[in-house]
């Protein structure tokens, strides 16, 4: 039992911190309504996306809070250029 619990914890922990860049890009793409998710990649300059807005910026922060339990700041979003930059900021704060 004890071993099982420990293994479960390790697995949960791993899932928690190891969400991959690809998974992050997918979660990020879900925030948009009019953009084909296939068009959003790790190297997409997200501020240039037509649908990008301050409200979607707030959605990024809320999504990261829910999925990673990380409190991103408005400045983190503003100062990131690509989706991968954002992911790296999240990973730094884990």
């Amino acid at each position, binding site marked *: 039992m004890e071993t099982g619990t420990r293994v479960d914890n390790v697995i949960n922990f791993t899932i928690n911190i190891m969400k991959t860049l690809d998974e992050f890009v997918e979660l990020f793409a879900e925030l948009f309504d009019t953009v084909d998710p296939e068009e959003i990649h790790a190297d997409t300059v997200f501020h240039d996306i037509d649908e990008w807005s301050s409200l979607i910026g707030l959605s990024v922060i809320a999504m990261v809070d829910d999925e990673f339990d990380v409190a991103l700041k408005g*400045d983190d979003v503003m100062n990131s250029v690509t989706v991968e930059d954002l992911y790296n900021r999240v990973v730094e704060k884990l």
Partner: protein
Amino acid sequence: MNDSYNPFSLQGKTILVTGASSGIGRAAAVECSRMGARVVITARNSQRLEETLSRMEGDGHRMCICDLSDTASIEEMVAGLPELDGLVNNAGFTQIRPLKFIDEEIFKQLLQVDTIAPIILLRQLVKKKKLLSGGSVVFTGSLAGVARVSPGNSMYAGCKGAISAFVRGAAVELADKGIRVNAVCPAMVDTGILDSGTVSQEQLEQDRLRYPLKRYGRPEDVAWAMIYLLSDASSWVTGTNMILDGGVLLK
């Protein structure tokens, strides 16, 4: 000119201020003391409450630690309070979340602190006959509750809108007792309520410039409106939601 003539004075009045450890509550406590009131200040954090107390003028003030999210804690505090001429029902907080990310637990916490606790506090004061006839209750509402809501602030708007509606109901019921109930509804005030940084400084700077008066409110701007509503100068005013917005609704 008669130097002692001041219908806005709070001399001789005892006033309870909640959320007095920072922001609008701290300014209300300090300014009420400067207008002659004896003030009872409350919040959860004793260190910051003491800081408020140290800024207050005059004698007879006291502080009272209370977790307003806990009804038992409210009842206990009310039992120990003196009779009051005024209540500044102010404690509150917000969390920025776009509608798609409204979280039930966060929403419940906001409702508890921003809506339920101030209503329960008023109920308890009325029930225990702690509010004197001629007394005045001022809620801290928000412009978000009655007019302009910034994106991501809809949970807070809902909580504060409930307060603005409640104020009118309470005003009707308490008028016979000679107790007035009003709210102030400020637009953005520099209080640290957005210190978590969800909204960036740059965004705040841009937003600030949308105000015709070119600045956000200061806590004292709100405190002075509260003083009017607490004083005998507003004896004929009840059930109102007073907007303080630097002119932003004009745009």
